[in-house]
C-alpha cells in the first residue's frame, strides 16, 4: 500500500508540472525527461529483464521518431495514429533484429544491436527522398482533437503515454511473459525444458521493447519539432545506458530516476556554484566510506583511489571559473563512481535499504492445490531404439535400446562418463542422436526441440542445477506453470479478470507444489539463496509444475545430506504413485536399489546390463564396470 501511495503522489506531482514549471525551458526539460523515461522503460525489457546489453535502442528510437514525424508531416496523420504507427513499425524492426540476436550473448549481442542501429542511422542519412537526410525534418506538433497543442498540452500527452506505458510494462513484468523474459537470463536450457520456447520469448521481448522505445521516439520528434539522423547516434545509446544503470534496472522507478538524472545532470553541471557544493559533499561521503572500509581491514592503498579522485575533483572545482569544458569529465567520473558503488543503481540501492525482509512465514496450504499435486496422471512409456550419439569422433552413446514403463522408476546407472547425462540430454532434445529412434508413447522425438519435447509431457531436473537464480522460489515454479495459462498477452497487459483468476490459481498451485517438496516457507526467497539440497528439490517442484508424464531426474541426490535423501525418496515415491514414468540417474546405490523397479547399466556409452535391482547387482559385467576386472577383485 505504501508503495501505491508513493506512486500516486509522484504521479500527481508529475501531472501538475505544467502548473509548477517556472518557464517554458523547464517545461520542455520535464517533457524530455518523460520521453526518455518511456524509452528507458522499453530498453529495460531487454537490459533489466532479458539481461542483455543492447547498444542499438537509439536505432529503434530513431525509427519511431521518423515514422511518427513522416506520417504527421507527409500524410497528415493525427497524433495518436502517428504514435501507434511509431510503436508498430519499431516493433516490426525489433522482430527482425531478434533473429541475428537470438543466439548471441554479451559483447556479441551488444554488437548485433549496435550494427543494426548503425545501419538505421546510415539509411536515415542517405535516403534523402524519404527522410530529407542530413537537412533534417521539421515536425510541428500536430493538433489534438482539432485544438492546437501548446507546450503544456503536449507535456500532458507525454505524461498520459508515460503513465500508460508504466502500467502496461508493470503488468508485463509481473505476468508469465515477464517471468519467461527473466528466466532467459537464468537459464535458457531450463526454460526450454519447461516447454517454453526461448526463441519465442526473446522475439516477444524484442518486439515489446522496440514498440515502447519506438513510441518514445515518436514523442521525441514532436517534442523537439525537428529531427536529424545525427541526433540519433552512439552518444544517445550511452545516455540511455547510463540512465538505466544509474537509475537501476529491472525496476520502473529506475527508468524514471535514470531519465531525470540523464536530462538534468548536464544542466546541473553547467552551474559551477552548485557543482562545488556537490563535489565537496561527494568527497566527504566517499572519504568517509573509504575510511570505514579500510578500518575494517579491507583493501590496500588502492582503496583510497576513489577518495583521492573525489578530493582532487573538489579542489579543482574551486580553481575553475567555469566548467563548460570539464563537464564531460565530471560526468564520466560520476558515472564511474555510480557504477562501482551503486551496482544496483540509485533505485535498487534505496530499495534494498527500505524493503522489508521477504516474508518467510508460509500461509496455510491451499487445499485445492494440494489435492492437485497428488492427482493421478497417466504416464507414458519411453522407447529408445538403437540410439547412437556422436560428438565429433567420440561416441558418447552407442546403439542403446531400452524401454521405460509407465508408473515405474527406471534406474540408469554406470561409472562416471558412462553416458548417463548424454542419455537424458538426448531424450530431452539437447543432443540429436546420429542414429536410432526415441518415442514418447507413439511420438518420435528425434529432431524435436527441447521445448517441443517438454510439451509432449517430458520434464527433467539437471545434474548441474539450472535454476533461475535471481528469481524467487515461487516464481521458478510459476515459470514451470507457463503453459497452464489460457489467457493471452493482451489479458496479461491489461490484467483482465480471466488473467487475474488464472494467476491466483497458479500461484496457489505453485505454493502447493512447494509444500509438496517441503519448501513452502521459502517461497519468496531468491532461488540462489537456497541451500544446495533445497535447490535440487526446487528443480523437482518446477519440473512437476509442467504436469509431466515422464520425469527425468539427473542425480537428484548429489550433494544432499543423508536426512535430505530420505525426504527425497519419500517425494519420489509419491510422484511414482501418481502414475508418472520416472527415470532416475543416481550414484547413491541404496537409493537406486530401494526405489527402482528396473535398472539399466551403461558403461562407455554402451548398455551392459538391464534388469531388476537384484539381477543387475549380481551381473558380473556390472561388478567389473564398477570395481575393475574381476581377477583384480578376486
Amino acid at each position, binding site marked *: 500500500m505504501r508503495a501505491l501511495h508513493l506512486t500516486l503522489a509522484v504521479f500527481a506531482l508529475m501531472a501538475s508540472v505544467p502548473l509548477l514549471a517556472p518557464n517554458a525551458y523547464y517545461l520542455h526539460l520535464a517533457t524530455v525527461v518523460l520521453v526518455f523515461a518511456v524509452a528507458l522503460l522499453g530498453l529495460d525489457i531487454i537490459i533489466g529483464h532479458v539481461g542483455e546489453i543492447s547498444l542499438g535502442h537509439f536505432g529503434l528510437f530513431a525509427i519511431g521518431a521518423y515514422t511518427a514525424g513522416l506520417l504527421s508531416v507527409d500524410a497528415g496523420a493525427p497524433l495518436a495514429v502517428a504514435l501507434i504507427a511509431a510503436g508498430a513499425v519499431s516493433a516490426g524492426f525489433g522482430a527482425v533484429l531478434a533473429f541475428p540476436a537470438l543466439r548471441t550473448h554479451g*559483447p556479441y549481442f551488444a554488437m548485433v544491436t549496435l*550494427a543494426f542501429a548503425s545501419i538505421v542511422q546510415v539509411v536515415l542519412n542517405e535516403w534523402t527522398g524519404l527522410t530529407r537526410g542530413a537537412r533534417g525534418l521539421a515536425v510541428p506538433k500536430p493538433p489534438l482533437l482539432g485544438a492546437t497543442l501548446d507546450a503544456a498540452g503536449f507535456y500532458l500527452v507525454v505524461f498520459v503515454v508515460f503513465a500508460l506505458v508504466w502500467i502496461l510494462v508493470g503488468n508485463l513484468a509481473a505476468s508469465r511473459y515477464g517471468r519467461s523474459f527473466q528466466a532467459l537470463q537464468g537459464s535458457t536450457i531450463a526454460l526450454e525444458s519447461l516447454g517454453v520456447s526461448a526463441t519465442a520469448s526473446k522475439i516477444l521481448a524484442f518486439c515489446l521493447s522496440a514498440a515502447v522505445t519506438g513510441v518514445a521516439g515518436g514523442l521525441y520528434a514532436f517534442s523537439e519539432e525537428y529531427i536529424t539522423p545525427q541526433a540519433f547516434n552512439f552518444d544517445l545509446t*550511452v545516455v540511455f*545506458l547510463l540512465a538505466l544503470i544509474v537509475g537501476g534496472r529491472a525496476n520502473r522507478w529506475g527508468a524514471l530516476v535514470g531519465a531525470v538524472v540523464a536530462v538534468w545532470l548536464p544542466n546541473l553541471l553547467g552551474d559551477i556554484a552548485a557543482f562545488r557544493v556537490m563535489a565537496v559533499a561527494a568527497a566527504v561521503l566517499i572519504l568517509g566510506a573509504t575510511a570505514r572500509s579500510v578500518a575494517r581491514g579491507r583493501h590496500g592503498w588502492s582503496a583510497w583511489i576513489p577518495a583521492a579522485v573525489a578530493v582532487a575533483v573538489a579542489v579543482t572545482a574551486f580553481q575553475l571559473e567555469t566548467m563548460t569544458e570539464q*563537464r564531460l*569529465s565530471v560526468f564520466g567520473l560520476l558515472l*564511474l563512481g555510480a*557504477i562501482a558503488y551503486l*551496482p544496483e543503481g540509485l533505485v535498487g540501492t534505496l530499495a534494498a535499504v527500505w524493503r522489508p525482509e521477504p516474508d518467510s512465514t508460509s500461509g496455510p496450504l491451499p487445499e485445492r492445490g494440494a489435492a492437485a499435486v497428488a492427482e493421478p496422471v497417466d504416464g507414458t512409456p519411453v522407447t529408445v531404439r538403437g540410439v547412437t550419439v556422436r560428438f565429433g569422433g567420440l561416441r558418447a552413446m552407442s546403439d542403446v535400446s531400452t524401454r521405460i514403463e509407465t508408473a515405474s522408476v527406471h534406474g540408469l546407472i554406470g561409472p562416471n562418463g558412462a553416458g548417463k547425462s548424454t542419455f537424458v540430454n538426448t531424450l530431452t532434445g539437447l543432443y540429436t542422436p546420429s542414429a536410432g529412434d526415441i518415442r514418447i508413447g507413439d511420438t518420435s522425438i528425434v529432431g524435436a526441440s527441447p521445448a517441443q519435447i517438454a510439451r509432449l509431457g517430458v520434464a527433467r531436473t539437471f545434474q548441474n542445477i*539450472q535454476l533461475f537464480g535471481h528469481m524467487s522460489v515461487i516464481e521458478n515454479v510459476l515459470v514451470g506453470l507457463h503453459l497452464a495459462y489460457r489467457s493471452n498477452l493482451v489479458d496479461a497487459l491489461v490484467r483482465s479478470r480471466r488473467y487475474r483468476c488464472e494467476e491466483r490459481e497458479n500461484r496457489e498451485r505453485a505454493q502447493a507444489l512447494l509444500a509438496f517438496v517441503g519448501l513452502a516457507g521459502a517461497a519468496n526467497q531468491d532461488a540462489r539463496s537456497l541451500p544446495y539440497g533445497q535447490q535440487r528439490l526446487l528443480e523437482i517442484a518446477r519440473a512437476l509444475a509442467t504436469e509431466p508424464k515422464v520425469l527425468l531426474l539427473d542425480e537428484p541426490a548429489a550433494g544432499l545430506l543423508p536426512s535430505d535423501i530420505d525426504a527425497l525418496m519419500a517425494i519420489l515415491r509419491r510422484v511414482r504413485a501418481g502414475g508418472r514414468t520416472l527415470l532416475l540417474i543416481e550414484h547413491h546405490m541404496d537409493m537406486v536399489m530401494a526405489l527402482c523397479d528396473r535398472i539399466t547399466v551403461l558403461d562407455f556409452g554402451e548398455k551392459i546390463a538391464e534388469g531388476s535391482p537384484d539381477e543387475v547387482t549380481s551381473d558380473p559385467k556390472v561388478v567389473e564396470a564398477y570395481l575393475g576386472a574381476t581377477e583384480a577383485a578376486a
Partner: protein
Amino acid sequence: MLDVLPQVLVSGITLGTIYGLIAFGYQLTYVTSRTVNFGQGEALAVGALVGLSLTPMLGYWAMLPVVIVFGGLYGLVVERIAVRPTLDSPSEGWILATIAFGIVAKNVSENIWGKEDLPFPSPLPPLPIEIGGAFVMPTELLIVGGALLLMVAIELFNRFTLLGRAFAATADEREAAGLVGIDTEKVISGSFALSCATAACAGVLVAPVTLTGPGMGLVLALKGFSAAILGGLTSGLGAVVGGLLIGIAEALTAFYISTGYKEVPGLLILLAALTLKPEGLFGRVLAKKV
C-alpha cells in the same frame, strides 16, 4: 571501373589491417576476463596525440616505444578503475564503466590538445610505389607492415611464452588458473596493458592518413569491434579475417556504390555471420555441461 580495382583493394586492405589490429586489442582482454574496453577508441586517440606531441622531441621512430609504454600504463589504469571494481558484479557494469572512462579521457585530451583535428607528419616521403598495378603510399605500407608485425608478435606471445599461456589458462577457467598459482588479477591487468598499448600503437600508425584528434578513435574502435566480433573474440586469425572483410567491403562500397553507404555491407555481413554462427566466424563454442 575494374582497372582501379587493385587500387581500391589496397585501400581496403590498409583499412582492414588497422581494424584487425584494433580487434586484437579487444581479444586480448576478452580472453582473460570476458570483458572488453569500450573506451578503446579513446586509448587509440590518446596514443596518437601523445605520439604527436613527442614526435618533435624524439622523432617518429623513437616515439613509438614511448607511446607503447604509455598505452600500457593507460591500460593498467583502465583496468584498475573501470574494470576490476565491476568484474564480479552480476550486471555488466564494465561496459558502462569503460565507456565512462573513455568519456573522461576524451574530455581531458580535448582540454590538453583542443577539439580540432591536427595533421600528423608522416615519417616516410609521399612518393607512391607501384605494386601490381596499384599505387601504394609508403605510409600505407608502414600501416600494413606495422599492424601485421604487431599482430604476429601478439600471436607468438600468446602461443609460446609462459605469460601468454597464463593468459589462455585464465581465459579457460579463472578459478582453476588461480589454483595452479597464476595471479589472475595480474594477468587481467597485463592483458589490459597490452590491449591499450596495441590501440595506442594503432593510433600512431593511422594518424598520418587520418587526422589526429580526441574524436578520431570512435569510428575506428567501432569498426575494430565489428571485426573482432565477426571473426570471433577468441581467434587471432578471426580478427585479421574480420578486419579485412570489413575493410575491403567498405572500400569497395565506397568506390563502386556510394560513400554514404560504405559501412552498411560490412555490418550486414556481420549480422548474417552472427545469425548463422553466434560465436563469430572463427570463435570457439564453449560447451556448457548441464
